[in-house]
């Protein structure tokens, strides 16, 4: 059936139609031109909102999720039953206070929780897009979010916030739509994906594509799932989200359910058992092709590239109030990369705050209980409110 008729309805027979969330269809009048040159129209977007939009529509906060994240910030995940991924940050009385702000989180373009991605059905063929889905970029994801804001009647966001890939989207928002963003909080991210990070992503993609159940990307129509490949990809990636200190503290060399080494290849060590668990549970909720597409989008991310390789060019004249946050033990997006962004913002005398938070929890710290992170975000948003009242930006 035509995509235009699908607003608020089932989107695909392949597994996202039952998800409890809000849905919109964007790019219905004008197709969205992607960075790769292809166009997409009638793009379904799955999203959640929390709190209430005020009368002058100035209290909207957009949360951008990470690689494998989704729109379920607070409520239990509909597939895993686990608590919302940012329940510590968003909610009544939380740093992003839903009693004060209207919080929106949309599933990213290319993902697999209801927004258009390779798992959804290509109206031209009636089959899942698979690898026929166009390669998308972080900017494409942001353009879709901007179309969602149009749909919701929100001209200007009080804040865009996110960690990791979400942080990349925050930066991209500030560059693409500086007049639609009052403030930006990019957390644990970089202005470009490093060679090391691209390398880790490539390992994950190769693991997926080496799984015979991947079927050249057409596993859905073949009734299969490349679960082994996707699980390995997740295991490799998960290591990069932690720190050596955190791994050692959590597992050390302790053995799993045994008193002595097994002299075999079972999961002797707790850390092995933990990683296997991470891999196995991941495949139940995530689409392998989405993993390929989204990691690719992150690899392609380079804010400076469009400005002759000079990052300052991306931010020139920016009216956005920035607050950048890094974590001391994050080796995936180390503080030095965040500091590069700070220096670029300084060079155009942008309004910028930058905090490195002491934590031994690695990259994943932004998802965890980090009181300092909450205090900084809360203070920054409070300051924003004061500045808007006394001296509107």
């Amino acid at each position, binding site marked *: 059936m035509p995509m235009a008729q699908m607003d608020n309805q089932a989107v695909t027979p392949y597994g996202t139609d039952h998800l409890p969330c809000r849905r919109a269809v964007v790019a219905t009048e004008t197709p969205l031109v992607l960075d790769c040159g292809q166009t997409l129209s009638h793009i379904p977007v799955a999203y959640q909102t929390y709190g209430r939009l005020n009368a002058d529509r100035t209290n909207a906060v957009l949360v951008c999720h990470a690689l494998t994240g989704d729109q379920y910030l607070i409520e239990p995940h509909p597939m895993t039953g686990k608590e919302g991924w940012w329940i510590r940050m968003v909610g009544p009385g939380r740093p992003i206070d839903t009693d004060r702000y209207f919080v929106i989180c949309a599933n990213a373009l290319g993902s697999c929780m209801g927004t258009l991605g390779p798992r959804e059905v290509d109206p031209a063929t009636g089959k899942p897009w698979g690898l026929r889905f166009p390669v998308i970029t972080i900017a494409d994801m942001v353009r879709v979010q901007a179309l969602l804001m149009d749909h919701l009647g929100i001209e200007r966001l009080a804040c865009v916030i996110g960690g990791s890939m979400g942080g990349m989207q925050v930066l991209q928002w500030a560059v693409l739509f500086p007049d639609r963003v009052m403030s930006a909080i990019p957390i644990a991210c970089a202005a470009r994906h490093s060679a090391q990070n691209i390398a880790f992503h490539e390992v994950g993609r190769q693991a997926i594509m080496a799984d015979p159940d991947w079927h050249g990307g057409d596993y859905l129509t073949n009734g299969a799932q490349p679960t082994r490949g996707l699980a390995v990809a997740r295991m490799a990636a998960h290591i990069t989200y932690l720190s050596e200190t955190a791994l050692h503290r959590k597992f050390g060399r302790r053995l799993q359910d045994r008193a002595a080494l097994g002299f075999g290849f079972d999961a002797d060590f707790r850390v092995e058992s933990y990683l296997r668990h991470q891999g196995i549970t991941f495949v139940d909720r995530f689409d392998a092709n989405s993993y390929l597409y989204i990691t690719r989008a992150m690899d392609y991310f380079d804010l400076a590239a469009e400005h002759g390789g000079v990052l300052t060019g991306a931010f020139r004249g920016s009216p956005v109030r920035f607050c950048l946050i890094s974590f001391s033990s994050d080796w995936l997006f180390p503080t030095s990369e965040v500091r590069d962004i*700070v*220096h670029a913002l*300084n060079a155009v005398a942008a*309004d*910028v*705050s930058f905090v*490195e938070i002491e934590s031994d929890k690695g990259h994943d710290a932004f998802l965890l209980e980090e009181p300092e992170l909450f*205090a900084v975000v809360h*203070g920054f948003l409070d300051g924003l409110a004061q500045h808007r009242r006394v001296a509107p930006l």
Partner: protein
Amino acid sequence: MSVEILETADADTPAGAPAIVEAGNPLGVEPADTAMPPMRPDLQLIADMIPPRCRVLDIGCDQGDLLAALWRSKAVDGRGMELSMAGVRACVRRGLSVVQGDADTDLMTYPDAAFDYAVLSQTLQAMRDPKEVLCQLVRIGRRAIVSFPNFGHWRVRWALMSTGRMPVTRHLQYSWYDTPNIHFCTIRDMDTLCADLGIVVERRIVLFGNGVARDLPLGWRANWLGRDAIFLLRHARGSGA
């Protein structure tokens, strides 16, 4: 000048010098517009020098007391740079725009004349390259405000002369081996360096040991009796408008 006079701690204000600011709060009266504790006297003097609604970069802003006061009382568009993460976090929690950074290396990332005032309070003596930092201050700020402890103060001179050891005074409490203050100077030194660098000293406020402050010309009174100094600077080629 006799030793007896030098040892009278609170007698070192020149006769007739009008008190610009009182240290502390002897009457216990809260400032009318705020319940904040009184600021360090040199910060209050600096705040008084800055006109409303201008752009200010406070380098070494610590917990953000100056920026917060400037925002509250003058709606100043303030930014801060602070080396200590604890200080930065405290500032951002207060809603101030502050980056973690090192003045020795990070000032060069700002463009020319990005700010109306670049403020460096009680920090120049801790810089690895104070000369370069001074140049950066008058480059990125149309004016710079620099406050520093005066190593030519009589107490410092007396401590060195009488004990033969590096001075440790109530005001400068570090021992030579653990002090962050690696580049002390006197008021006269600062005037000389500014002249060498083509920097104009527009104002020279001298703070005495009893908390009284006044504008003084360069001379023996400033250099002997000033415990701290605040210089208002601009580059000679700048318009200063």
